[in-house]
């Protein structure tokens, strides 16, 4: 019915977007967008901006639904939560940044923040809080009922271990991890990094020694903490989920949002290990047969990354932070920070020099 009333999304727009997007450009755009979000926060947190943003995205979203390929992937029942996540995250970020900007201005003028002004005022839970909660759960129930009524839960063919669907995807909330598998081996992307994500989150209260910004919105007083966390949450988690769900098709090839998922698309992947670069190209000799000698350049790189970089950073970039945090806290912080940075770094190395593994010992499943 929609298709009858609305003209289709013009081909040139589709072709432009499909042609523009590929993994490299997608990631670069999301990083640039993130930087712009932080940098121009006092601009986009104005009231008209979010109105315009929502009007534009929603119109464009529904207009895009006139494209069959777009509709097929976005309209998949299990992918609907991602659309909900996208819009609610956009709105709530707007709310949060707006409060940050306003509070930062107040702080700059030496005035109490919005929350400080209300801190001493206390209200009875009945009715203020209880009714707010009541209203929230009614709205949530209504949303859930409408959603459940209009959208059937998916049920595909009975399970069969012989027929692997192409592509095979984990549930949507793990697709950031599955996307990581393109760059790192399962033992890192599937086991070690998730463990580090959990441990890193748990470590946050013990490595963030900044006493400011406790219980109120502020950006300026917590620049590093908020930027780092949001980079992890938005760029390395949510946008990778969107990439993994909407833009990864058969054989885990990348497809633009309006592109047809062609299972026979061939993407040549000729990736090279670090050891091959060092011995074959730079030293011009054969790979040593001794595994440890062969992977020596890789081991040195990894050791340098985790052992040499932290003191270097402490002296160059994080001088004040090192003083504030002390040795153990600083080491913990920088270790998790480096682990987090390891993903975009490997991505860039893959795109620029086709690096496959830094350390490659497939004999013992030890590839980095």
């Amino acid at each position, binding site marked *: 019915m929609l298709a009858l009333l609305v003209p289709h999304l013009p081909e040139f727009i589709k072709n432009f977007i499909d042609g523009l997007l590929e993994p490299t450009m997608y990631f670069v755009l999301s990083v640039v967008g993130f930087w712009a979000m932080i940098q121009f926060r006092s601009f986009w947190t104005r009231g008209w901006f979010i109105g315009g943003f929502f009007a534009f995205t929603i119109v464009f979203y529904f207009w895009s639904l006139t494209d069959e390929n777009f509709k097929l992937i976005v309209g998949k029942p299990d992918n609907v939560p991602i659309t909900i996540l996208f819009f609610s995250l956009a709105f709530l970020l707007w709310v949060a940044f707006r409060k940050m900007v306003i509070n930062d201005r107040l702080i700059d003028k030496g005035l109490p923040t919005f929350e400080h002004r209300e801190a001493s005022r206390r209200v009875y839970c009945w009715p203020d809080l209880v009714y707010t909660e009541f209203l929230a759960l009614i709205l949530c129930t209504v949303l859930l009922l409408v959603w459940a009524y209009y959208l059937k839960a998916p049920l595909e063919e009975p399970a069969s*271990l*012989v027929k692997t669907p*192409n*592509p*095979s995807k984990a549930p949507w909330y793990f697709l950031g991890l599955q996307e990581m*598998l393109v760059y790192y081996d399962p033992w890192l992307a599937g086991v070690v990094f998730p463990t580090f994500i959990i441990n890193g989150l748990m470590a946050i209260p013990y490595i963030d020694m900044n006493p400011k910004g406790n219980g109120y919105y502020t950006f300026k007083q917590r620049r590093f903490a908020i930027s780092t966390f949001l980079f992890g949450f938005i760029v390395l988690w949510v946008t990778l989920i969107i990439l993994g769900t909407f833009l990864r098709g058969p054989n*885990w090839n990348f497809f633009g949002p309006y592109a047809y998922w062609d299972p026979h698309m061939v993407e040549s992947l000729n990736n090279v290990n670090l050891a091959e670069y060092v011995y074959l190209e730079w030293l011009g000799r054969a790979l040593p047969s001794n595994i440890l000698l062969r992977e020596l350049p890789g081991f040195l790189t990894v050791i340098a990354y985790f052992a040499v970089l932290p003191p270097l950073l402490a002296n160059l970039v994080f001088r004040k932070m090192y003083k504030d945090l002390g040795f153990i806290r600083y080491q913990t912080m920088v270790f998790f920070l480096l682990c987090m940075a390891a993903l975009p770094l490997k991505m860039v190395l893959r795109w620029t020099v086709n690096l496959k593994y830094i350390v490659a010992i497939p004999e013992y499943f030890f590839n980095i």
Partner: protein
Amino acid sequence: MSETNDKGRRSFLAAVSTGWALFTAASVAGLGMCVRFLFPNDTFEPATKFKVGYPGDFAASSEGIVDKRYKTRGIWIVRTLDGFFVLSTVCTHLGCTPNWLEAEKKFKCPCHGSGFYSSGINFEGPAPRPLERFKVSLAADGQLEIDKGKKYQQEKGQWDDPESFLKMEYSV
């Protein structure tokens, strides 16, 4: 008197620490039992050793013709002009089941796009190593017999093992 007191205290401490040590050991053992309970001794899965027919049933070519009939049992049988070898259908990246694309002469994994030649050697995508091979031999009745209990990994040099390959010249 203080000496006897001291003695009494020491033996009391010894008894208490022994008690706690025993309690801790018993707790750890109990927890270990619970964990061990989750690992069954037997898992009613199909036999690992089975027969797949006579050598004459398989066509051959120089780089090998892939027989997909036993994919449900987790194997591909590849017949070259020299003989037979058997590949595992488990992708070495994350364990999905690749598909044999006859036109492109390769195994292609649908999960992350790893590609393998009919020999099992990986050449594209994230798979870190070649597909594994299984033991193949001739049974007494002349049929090919596969033993999935014995696997051979190329990167460990095990494909040179005579049991990983059944030598048999192809004749029309």
